[in-house]
């Protein structure tokens, strides 16, 4: 026992030392990477894996071989939206993900995901997400964009030694976009995401203490071209001040992002009593980006941004297999601090401080062999403190949002299972909107059927969104067909 403790301490301190010694720490914030899904035991909280972000954890928790094929379609029709948002959105997605236990100690997960989206009637902006960048590229026309591209992901996780787990994660994605009218901006985004993690466990495998390091690299390039006259584009510096780029045959914008996440995890099975599972997770990261624009031969640095993000998560889950009840509770506290500077001079053009607290509770109860009820709620308070110095603008506000879900699952027979539910949501909006609050009502309908090839399922979601003091509403329809 003493020798075991000594070994554990040795690896523990080695792990921590390696984690701390390294390297620049940057946060990860990408709109490209979609977390691939693993078909999990229904009692395991779905968000657990993404909250941990440590690839070593997969071989610790143990998941059976499975695969899932999925095709989905999303349609959003907006009567009310921010100035630079699309008026409507259509997205077709297809994905495949497979988990295979290579042996008793290791597993491999491979996923491929392809997205084909149309963002229709976007006013001036050439950005896929105008409000996610401080240096937005725009032109002078309203047009529609077509984005498409694949993403692939591989995860390898292994029980290296008796008490040591190791895993690595690799994601790569590429996406291209094209505007249908002048300036017919073409865009191309590539994203590389590599992480590696370690974890230590105890003799009875009820404890996981882990750490991971993750590096991301992102490049985005936009190219606007002339039609009969020179391409005329603008660059925003913040959300108010802009400058005209020199008109030319081709005007480009490039963005380069590098970032690293570091995190530590603590997971304990059966903490005080059987099946009470506890998770602590701390993630810290920094990210730096450089933005250039102008002619393709002589681009000029327009600015740079830096982001520091921290997240602390605490989760409790109690879902015994023999019990009718299942409970889970999650609390997350996160902070984000970012700033942007001028490209040519060493001055700060804006800074932003955010903090967020999220509470979520998820309760399920089985009524007999066929019926299961689920109720969940998520409450979030976000504090924003945004200041622009090049325009003299500031916005300090606390925003509250909540989601409440009610769901029924019913086993019609040995082959077919039905699911129905609804979700109420409300979200206070920031200064980009001409409304203070958004309310949503979503209906969900799902069917699963056991077949010779696996479980075939279909999910349908329909949501109506309304806005305070605004007439008209937004409609969202989502359809998903899968085989697992």
């Amino acid at each position: 026992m003493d020798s075991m403790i000594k070994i554990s301490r040795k690896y523990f301190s080695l792990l921590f030392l390696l984690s701390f010694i390294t390297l620049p720490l940057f946060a990860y914030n990408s709109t490209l990477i979609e977390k691939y899904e693993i078909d999990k035991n229904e009692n395991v909280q779905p968000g657990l894996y993404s909250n941990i972000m440590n690839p070593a954890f997969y071989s610790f928790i143990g998941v059976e071989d499975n695969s899932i094929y999925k095709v989905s379609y999303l349609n959003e029709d907006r009567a009310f939206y921010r100035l630079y948002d699309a008026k409507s959105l259509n997205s077709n997605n297809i994905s495949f993900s497979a988990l295979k236990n290579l042996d008793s100690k290791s597993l491999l997960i491979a996923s491929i995901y392809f997205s084909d989206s149309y963002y229709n009637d976007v006013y001036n902006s050439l950005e896929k997400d105008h409000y996610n960048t401080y240096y937005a590229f725009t032109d002078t026309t309203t047009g529609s964009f077509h984005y498409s591209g694949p993403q692939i992901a591989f995860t390898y996780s292994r029980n290296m030694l008796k008490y040591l787990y190791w895993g690595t994660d690799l994601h790569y994605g590429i996406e291209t976009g094209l505007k249908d009218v002048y300036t017919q901006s073409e865009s191309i985004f590539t994203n590389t995401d590599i992480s590696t993690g370690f974890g230590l466990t105890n003799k009875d495998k009820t404890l996981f203490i882990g750490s991971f390091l993750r590096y991301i690299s992102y490049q985005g390039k936009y190219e606007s071209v002339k039609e009969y006259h020179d391409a005329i584009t603008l660059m925003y510096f913040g959300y108010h001040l802009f400058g005209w780029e020199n008109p030319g045959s081709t005007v480009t914008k490039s963005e380069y992002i590098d970032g690293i996440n570091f995190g530590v995890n603590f997971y304990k099975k059966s903490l005080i009593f059987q099946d009470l599972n506890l998770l602590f997770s701390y993630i810290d990261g920094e990210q730096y980006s450089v933005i250039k624009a102008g002619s393709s031969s002589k681009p000029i640095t327009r600015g740079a941004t830096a982001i520091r993000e921290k997240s602390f998560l605490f989760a409790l889950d109690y879902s015994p297999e023999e019990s009718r009840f299942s409970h889970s509770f999650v609390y997350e506290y996160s902070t984000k601090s970012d700033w942007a500077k001028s490209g040519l001079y060493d001055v700060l053009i804006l800074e932003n401080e955010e903090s967020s607290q999220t509470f979520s509770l998820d309760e399920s109860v089985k009524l007999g062999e066929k019926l299961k009820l689920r109720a969940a709620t998520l409450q979030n308070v976000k504090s924003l403190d945004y200041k622009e110095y090049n325009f003299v603008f500031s916005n300090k506000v606390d925003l509250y949002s909540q989601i409440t879900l009610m769901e029924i699952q019913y086993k019609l027979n040995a082959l077919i299972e039905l699911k129905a539910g609804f979700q109420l949501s409300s979200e206070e909006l920031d200064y980009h909107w001409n409304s203070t609050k958004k309310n949503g009502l979503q209906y969900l309908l799902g069917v699963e059927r056991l077949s010779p090839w696996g479980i075939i399922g279909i999910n349908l979601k329909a949501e109506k969104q309304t806005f305070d003091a605004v007439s008209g509403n937004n409609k969202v329809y989502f359809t998903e067909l899968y085989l697992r």
Partner: protein
Amino acid sequence: MVKYVLLIAFLIFSSCDYLPQKPEMEDGNYSINIIAKYADISSGDTLLVDSASVYLSSYDFDIPEISGITDDSGQVVFTNLITTEYNVSVKGIVKRPFINNPDSLINLSVLGYGNVIPGVSEGVDTIYTISSGAEPGLKINELYTVGSPNNFFYFFDQYIELYNSADETKYLDGMIFCRMSYGLCCVTYIFQFPGEPLIGREYPVEPGEFVILAGDAMNHITLESGTIKLPGSVDLSEADWEFKNSKDYGDWDNPDVPNIDNIEVGHTRDFLISLTSDVVLLADGSDLNYLDGIDVESVVDCVEYSSSSTHTKDIETSVDQGYGGIGLSKYSGQSLERIEPGFDSNNSTYDFEIIEAPTLWYHHE
């Protein structure tokens, strides 16, 4: 031992911040201090220009022009500015003795231009003004080169406007008009007015007169007998002169408009210049040997223009210190004209400004 390892590791981690350093200075706190002066060459005096209007403008950002008035010490301070390069222009009046009666004073309009660059310009920036109408004579006053709005690449409505800013009549006889590249050594096109250079008196330009030199002297607003219309274009059918290459048999020739003809052997094309970046030059015609370039002493006026702020300067600074036209857009109907008729500080960056439409035979307000 383990305790110490963990402690050291914690200290290393907690002290680390690998992000690039956040700037200490916030934008919006930049100050510019301008002193306007006038150097009187005849008397050698340097005067402070008080009550002068000073304007700041920026190429980098779409911000309104900022203005101020100099005080009694010729100074004006601008504060709370966005940190960027500013173009400074000064317009004022100085009282100087009248040349024929030193006891009486006349008001002399003065203009001055400069650039203020953060980090380069320190403390006070002095702008030296010059009186308008310096170096009077024949000037290239306006260049209309980009073409009117159209979707079939039509830019044959180009013209150049000359202006006589002198108090005496000037003569176009034998003068040459050139398109240059990379310097005075390199002539791309050379066309000559009829008559004897330097001594001819057949083609006068009176003081204050505008002269239009058309690429094709026709009505470009209505093309092909009215089937195609370009409302943003110009009617050059009554131009004063027309560039006509007698070796270009397809070149348009208005019989009612006198021609400026090509004199380069083997050149068979019309006088067409680049829509957004070129050099044009007017010389007195004393040097017609274009093979070794144009003598600088024969240059009457020269203008370099480019739409790009990162353009590499072509012509020698002795004939034009800068280049005008930054921001010109092809097929926009824009034109490039001097800020005042005939105003020439030998720097097209400041002497010219973009106007939204051409102004034939008059100057924009």
